[in-house]
């Protein structure tokens, strides 16, 4: 066995072990719940692909997931971890909805209104990303803490707006009291792609953004500097890169992506701001980004896979009685296993030692 061969075998076996570990851990959780493990796995993995409606539903879920994960990737590659996508998405929803409602009766072509309100969502999300970025760059505040706090603040602000300034006047008169905004006029909706499904044109925006991120990070000097700042702060600073600036800008981009994802959800799917749009997308985005190896080419399939898990989780609730929260447990397990496996895979010393042990033994034989 040559060294090169050994490395490949070693890496493959680590990956297989990691997958097995994740499967075993989730099986343990399912056993605690007293569920049929194999049947649950089968429902999650095959049911969402059974017919057209389910597959488009998976794509519908994949749209916000991929956009958020792309934003998280930009931040991660620049050395800042964005766990505030949840709050940034909520702020984006507020930006898009209020802009769209404000311009709805203005004499502007609807396409332009759609574009302006999506940009508004991106900007509000970006502002919400700017805060932790500047706090990290100027005050060395851990973004892990500030983004989480901003999530809670945004969630409160979101419900405040839905119950106060943005509340649908119809809710006041009928008095059902559901905290939601007015419905957007039909010409501001993103077009549906297939009759009878919820798949909307947002999918093209998501794919476009994936290309954009690829070009930004790997085909421009700006992206090169971002990645340099993320790969090694000290070296980057020595190389004349203003690390703080790149940190902040990448956090703004990351927040803008999350805000855009929120805006697309409103214009494409719900057509109004309601409670619970963001539910968990921000955190799932982290898992998708890591699962997609922090690269657009990985994130697009990864977001499809996680969309499938989300749809599958809803089905397990109906078909095997496993609560849909189970998906969050799975995501937690996947994060833990991925980051652990990554470190083992990247441990050159460990690899050298193992290689010496096995390759040389065979040579002696």
């Amino acid at each position: 066995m040559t060294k090169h061969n050994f490395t490949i075998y070693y890496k493959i076996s680590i990956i297989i072990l990691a997958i097995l570990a994740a499967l075993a851990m989730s099986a343990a959780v399912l056993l605690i719940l007293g569920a049929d493990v194999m049947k649950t796995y089968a429902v999650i993995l095959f049911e969402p692909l059974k017919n057209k409606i389910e597959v488009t539903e998976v794509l519908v879920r994949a749209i916000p997931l991929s956009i958020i994960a792309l934003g998280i990737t930009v931040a991660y590659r620049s050395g800042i971890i964005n766990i505030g996508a949840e709050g940034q998405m909520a702020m984006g929803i507020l930006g898009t909805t209020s802009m769209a409602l404000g311009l709805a009766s203005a004499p502007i072509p609807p396409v332009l209104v759609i574009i302006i309100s999506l940009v508004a969502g991106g900007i509000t999300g970006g502002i919400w990303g700017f805060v932790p970025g500047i706090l990290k760059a100027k005050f060395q505040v851990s973004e892990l803490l500030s983004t989480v706090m901003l999530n809670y603040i945004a969630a409160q602000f979101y419900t405040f707006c839905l119950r106060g300034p943005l509340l649908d006047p119809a809710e006041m008169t009928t008095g059902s009291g559901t905290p939601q905004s007015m419905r957007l006029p039909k010409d501001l909706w993103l077009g549906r792609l297939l009759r009878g499904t919820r798949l909307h044109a947002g999918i093209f925006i998501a794919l476009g953004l994936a290309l954009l991120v690829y070009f930004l990070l790997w085909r421009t000097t700006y992206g090169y500097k971002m990645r340099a700042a993320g790969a090694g702060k000290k070296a980057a600073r020595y190389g004349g890169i203003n690390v703080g600036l790149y940190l902040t800008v990448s956090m703004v981009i990351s927040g803008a992506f999350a805000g855009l994802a929120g805006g697309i959800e409103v214009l494409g799917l719900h057509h109004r701001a309601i409670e619970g749009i963001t539910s968990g997308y921000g955190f799932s985005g982290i898992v998708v980004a890591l699962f997609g190896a922090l690269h657009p080419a990985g994130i697009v399939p990864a977001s499809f896979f996680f969309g499938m898990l989300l749809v599958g989780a809803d089905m397990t609730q109906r078909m095997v009685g496993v609560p849909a929260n189970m998906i969050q447990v799975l995501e937690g397990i996947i994060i833990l296993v991925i980051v652990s496996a990554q470190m083992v895979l990247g441990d050159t010393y460990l690899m050298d030692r193992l290689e010496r042990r096995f390759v040389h033994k065979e040579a002696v034989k």
Partner: protein
Amino acid sequence: MNFVINIITLGIPFSVALLLASLGEMFNQRAGIFNLGCEGIMAMGAFLGMLVPYAYGQGGATPGYFNVLGLLLATAVGALLGLFFGLSVITFKAPQGIAGIGLQMFGVGLAGTMFRHFIGGTQSVPGIGTAPVPLLSKIPVLGPMLFSNNVLVYIAFLLVPVSYWVLFKTQWGLKVRACGTFPGAADSLGIDVNRIRFQSLAVGGALAGLAGAYLSLCQAKMFSDEIIAGRGFIAVALVYFGYWNPVNIMWGALLFSLAQSFQFAIQAQGINFPYEFAVMLPYVLVIVTLAFSRDKKMQEPTALGIPFDREKRV
């Protein structure tokens, strides 16, 4: 005056969960582990704490020892989850921030899943009542404020001097601090750095589990998905706020819970102030204090967040 008394009387019980969790997190960070999964451990503790009395409660009349059993179960599982986290960040040297998010999602998700599966909807438990201290609770104003609380409240505040003593006056505390500041030196003196770190994770996890159980058994007397509401993260921030020192952490916990009880106090007063902004207050306070505590970072355990690697000689 009444307003202030109200805030303080409410604030002290509120501070207990934060105090317990952040004391635990302090042990983690002193040993060099940044445990962002505290929130998840607390959620598991909150669910398990109320599960035992719920499962064995006979028509609302739960014998007291089931409450104790619930607390013990939450503490034990908290310690186990801490060790589980250690498997990832110590054994496999995973980056602690991201792994912490994983643990948080795992814990919160598992607690929510089990809650839906085993209990279903909102169910309250009798929980643990207040235990006024004889004599002391008779003091006007101060008595009801300080001495007619839950047993866990007294325990939590007693844990402040205890953890100070453990951290600064015992050999184990010295080892913990050494592992967080200069693990290489500790290793050269024959201290098993990773073992100490695992131990501190178990202690921290146990305290976080207990903190969660306090929330479900004493404060809310029920479980819901939003029961922790970011307290795990605030606890992590409080450790920074309090210079990694139990006494300062206690003041921090009190400050943040006073901000929290402020929201209830103004509601009771009938002041027209948007409720949502009052709820935001503690979170805003965390961000502001983190931003303006730059010099405190000088005292940060220098090896915080860095996995120990014998080969790397740091």
